[in-house]
């Protein structure tokens, strides 16, 4: 398990290669990379700055990964989230999940992303031609996280 918050970029291929190095029990690695877009809510975005809550961020991400491990039989999980100023096209977040079978890997990867979006203390401020603005939380992200709740 690897959880990192950093300003530098990351290398998807290297992270996934590190997960599988020397192992022959992994059958599936599902991964996700979130990227900064040049457009959001109808405005051009020229850059964004990611702020976070040091200490709580790492705790929140660890808890998400623990929750995923409790729900699915996972072999390894890597979460990397960037902070600081990013430009359109820059990678923001990486989640990679290794499992014996693909169903678990896909489900856990999407679960971690959905809860990261609603529970990890990161905030985005976008620079647009109309000025800087803090991104508002989305109801669609709450809905995505809520669908994992069990009765």
């Amino acid at each position, binding site marked *: 398990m690897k959880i990192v918050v950093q300003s530098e970029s990351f290398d998807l291929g290297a992270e996934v290669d590190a997960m599988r190095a020397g192992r022959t029990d992994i059958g599936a690695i599902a991964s996700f990379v*979130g990227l900064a877009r040049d457009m959001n809510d109808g405005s051009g975005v020229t850059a964004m700055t*990611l*702020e*976070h*809550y040091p*200490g*709580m961020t790492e*705790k*929140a991400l660890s808890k998400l990964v623990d929750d995923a491990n409790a729900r699915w039989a996972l072999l390894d999980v890597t979460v990397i*989230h960037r902070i600081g100023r990013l430009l359109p096209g820059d990678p*923001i*977040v990486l989640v990679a999940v290794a499992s014996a079978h693909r169903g678990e890997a896909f489900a856990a990867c999407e679960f971690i*992303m959905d809860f*990261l*979006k*609603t*529970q*990890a*203390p*990161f*905030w*985005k*401020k976008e620079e647009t031609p109309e000025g800087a603005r*803090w*991104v*508002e*939380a*989305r109801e669609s992200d709450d809905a995505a996280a809520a669908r994992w709740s069990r009765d």
Partner: protein
Amino acid sequence: MKLHMLYFARLRERFGVGEETLELAGATVADLLAVLQARGGAWAEELAAGRAFRVAVDQAVVAPDAPLADGAEVAIFPPVTGG
């Protein structure tokens, strides 16, 4: 009790402060919020009932009736938007 307060993102900018130490005569998060709202201005506006903000005590999000202990780290911030 003495609390170590942290404010993040839009609320940090609105309040014009990122952290402060605060002496609270009270027992819960609701008591703390009442004290902050009484400062007026952006404090009253942003922390009004029905506004979307979160409170974390010692780095875990809590409800308004959560108890506070001396020396706690209390953070107030907008709904998160990372990823």
